[in-house]
C-alpha cells in the first residue's frame, strides 16, 4: 500500500510494531536466559548471573538423556513424511487437475480433504492406534510417517492443485504431441514448473510434522518418540528439571529458525497459499 502518511503517524506505527515485536521475542529471550542458568540461579530470580552450559551438556550428552535420539527421530519422520506427502499429493493433484476424472471424483476428494482437515487429529488417533497395533505399525517410523503423511495430505493436495493449475496446458499438450509418456511429462514438464510450489509446500509440511504432538504421543513409544513427546515428558516428571526443560525447548526451535533464515519467502508463500487459495 502506498504509505502517504505523515512522519508522526509513521513514527507511532513503528512504535506499536516494535512493541509487538518485543512481546513476540520476549518469551524466547527469557527461555534462552533460563537455559543458561543453574537451577539455583533460576529459582532465586537473579537478573545478573554467570552463564553455564551444564543444562545443554546434560540434555545432549548425559547417559540417561535421549534427546539426540529424539532429535534424529523427528528428522527421520519429518523428512520421510515430507517426501511421501509431496509425491502422493503432487501426483494426486495433477491427476485431479489434468486428467479427465468425473466431477464427483475430483470435487468429492477435494471436499473430503477439507472436511478431514477440520477433524481434530485426536479423534482419528484412537482408531489409528487400534489399526496400527493390529498390523504392527505401532511404534515404528513408517507408522508415524504414514500418520503425518495422512494429516498433511489435504493441505498438499489443495496447494499443489493450485500450483499444477498454473502449468500452461499448451505446454503439456505440446509434450504429448511430441510423444512424451506420462512419467516423462511429469518429470520433465510439470515438476520443473511447480518447483517453487513444491519448496513452499515441503518446508511447511516438514515444520508441521516437526511440531506435531497429539498423534506422535500416542503412536510412538521410547524407540520412536519425537522431540515434542520428549519435551512433554519433562513437564510430567515429579520433580521438573526446569533449566533442562528450557535448554531442550530452546534446542528444539533450531530447525524452525534455520528454515526461517534460509526460506522466509517460501514459508510465507506456503502459509498464505495454503489458507487463501
Amino acid at each position, binding site marked *: *500500500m502506498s504509505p502517504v502518511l505523515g512522519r508522526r503517524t*509513521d513514527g507511532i*506505527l513503528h512504535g506499536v*510494531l516494535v512493541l*509487538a515485536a518485543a*512481546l*513476540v*521475542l520476549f*518469551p524466547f529471550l*527469557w*527461555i534462552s536466559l*533460563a537455559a543458561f542458568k543453574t537451577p539455583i540461579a533460576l*529459582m*532465586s530470580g537473579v537478573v545478573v548471573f554467570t552463564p553455564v552450559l551444564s543444562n545443554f551438556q546434560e540434555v545432549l550428552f548425559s547417559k540417561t538423556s535421549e534427546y539426540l535420539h529424539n532429535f534424529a527421530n523427528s528428522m527421520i519422520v519429518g523428512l520421510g513424511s515430507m517426501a511421501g506427502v509431496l*509425491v502422493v499429493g503432487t*501426483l*494426486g493433484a*495433477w*491427476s*485431479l487437475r489434468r*486428467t479427465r*476424472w468425473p466431477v464427483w471424483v475430483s470435487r468429492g*476428494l477435494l471436499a473430503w480433504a477439507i472436511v*478431514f482437515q*477440520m*477433524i*481434530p*487429529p*485426536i*479423534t482419528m488417533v*484412537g*482408531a*489409528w*492406534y*487400534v489399526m496400527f*497395533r493390529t498390523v504392527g505399525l505401532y511404534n515404528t517410523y513408517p507408522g508415524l510417517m*504414514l500418520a503425518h503423511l*495422512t494429516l498433511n*495430505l489435504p493441505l498438499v493436495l489443495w496447494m499443489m492443485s493450485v500450483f499444477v493449475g498454473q502449468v500452461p496446458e499448451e505446454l503439456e499438450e505440446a509434450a504429448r504431441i511430441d510423444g512424451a509418456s*506420462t512419467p516423462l511429462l511429469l518429470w520433465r514438464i510439470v515438476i520443473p514448473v511447480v518447483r517453487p510450489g513444491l519448496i513452499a509446500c515441503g518446508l511447511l509440511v516438514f*515444520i508441521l510434522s516437526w*511440531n506435531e*504432538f*497429539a498423534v506422535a504421543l*500416542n503412536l510412538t513409544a521410547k524407540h520412536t518418540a519425537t522431540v*515434542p513427546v520428549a*519435551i*512433554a515428558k519433562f*513437564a510430567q516428571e515429579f520433580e521438573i528439571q526446569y533449566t533442562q*526443560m*528450557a535448554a531442550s525447548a530452546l534446542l*528444539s526451535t533450531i530447525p*524452525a529458525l534455520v*528454515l*526461517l533464515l534460509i526460506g*522466509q519467502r517460501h514459508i*510465507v508463500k506456503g*502459509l498464505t497459499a495454503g*489458507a*487463501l487459495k
Partner: protein
Amino acid sequence: MRSEMVWRAVTLGPTAAIFLALTALPIVSLLAMSFHDVRWVLGAPRWTYVGTKNFLALSQDHLFRAGIVNTVLFAVSAVLVQMGLGFFLALASSKVSRGRVLYRAVFILPILVPGIVIGAIWKLMYNYDFGVVNQLTGLLGMLPQDWLGQKGTALLSIIIVDCWHWTPFCFLLLLAGLESQPQDIYEAAKVDGASPWGELAYITFPLMLPTIAVTLLFRLIMAFKVFDEVFLLTGGGPGTATEVISFTIYRRFFTEDRVGHGSAISIVTLFLIALLIVLAVAAARRWERKP
C-alpha cells in the same frame, strides 16, 4: 489412450488409497468401536457388543460436558482477540514506510515453533516461584498468582498463550490480503479527499471481508482442535477448568483405556463438526444470494 487411463489411475491411486484406508476407514471403525467395549488381551483387541451404552454414558460424563463448554469458550474468545490484534498489526505494517519484511519475519516466529515447546516456555514463565509473569505483575504491586493452578485464571492463562502463539497467523494472512488489494481504488479515494478513517471503513474493510472470513474460519477450526498447550500447561485442571474436548478424548481413550467410551465422544465430536460445516455452508450460500 489405454495407457493414459492407466496413468490416470496410478497418479490418483495413492491419494485415494490413503484417504480410504486412513481417514474413511478409521471413522467407520470409530463408529463400530463406539457400540462395543474394546479391551486389549495379549496385544490383540477383544470386542464385546454393548449397544448404545457408551453414548448413554456421555450424558453422565461431566468431563465431556465441561470439555465442550470450555472448547467453545476458548476458541471464540481467543480467536476474536487474535483477529482484532492481527488486523491491527497487519494494517500498521502495511502502512509503515519501511521494515515490513523484518517485522513479518519476527512476527511469524511463534507459528513455526512446536505447540508443546510454547507450552513449556510459558509453563516456566507462569511458574509461581520464579516465573517472569509474577515478577512483572509484582512490579505493578500485585500479589503473586498461581496462574495455571487456580480456577479463575487457568483458562485465561491458556487463552493468553494461544493469542501469543496464533495472532501471528492472523497477522500473516490478513497482511497478504491487504497486499493484494487493488491500489487504484485508494488513489481514487485520495483524489476524492477521503479521510484515513473513511478509507478504512468504506474501502479497506469491505474489500478485506473475504480474507477476514477465511482467516476467521481457519483459526476457529484450528482452535477447536486445541490439545498441545492444554496437555502441557494444565492437563485439563484445576478440576475441569481447562478441560477441552480433545483432551477428554485423549484421557478416556488412552490414559483410561476406555476405547468404546472414547470412540463415542469422538463420534459425537465429528457429528458436531459436520453440523457446523453444514451450517457454515448454508450461511455462506445465503449470504452470497443476497444482492
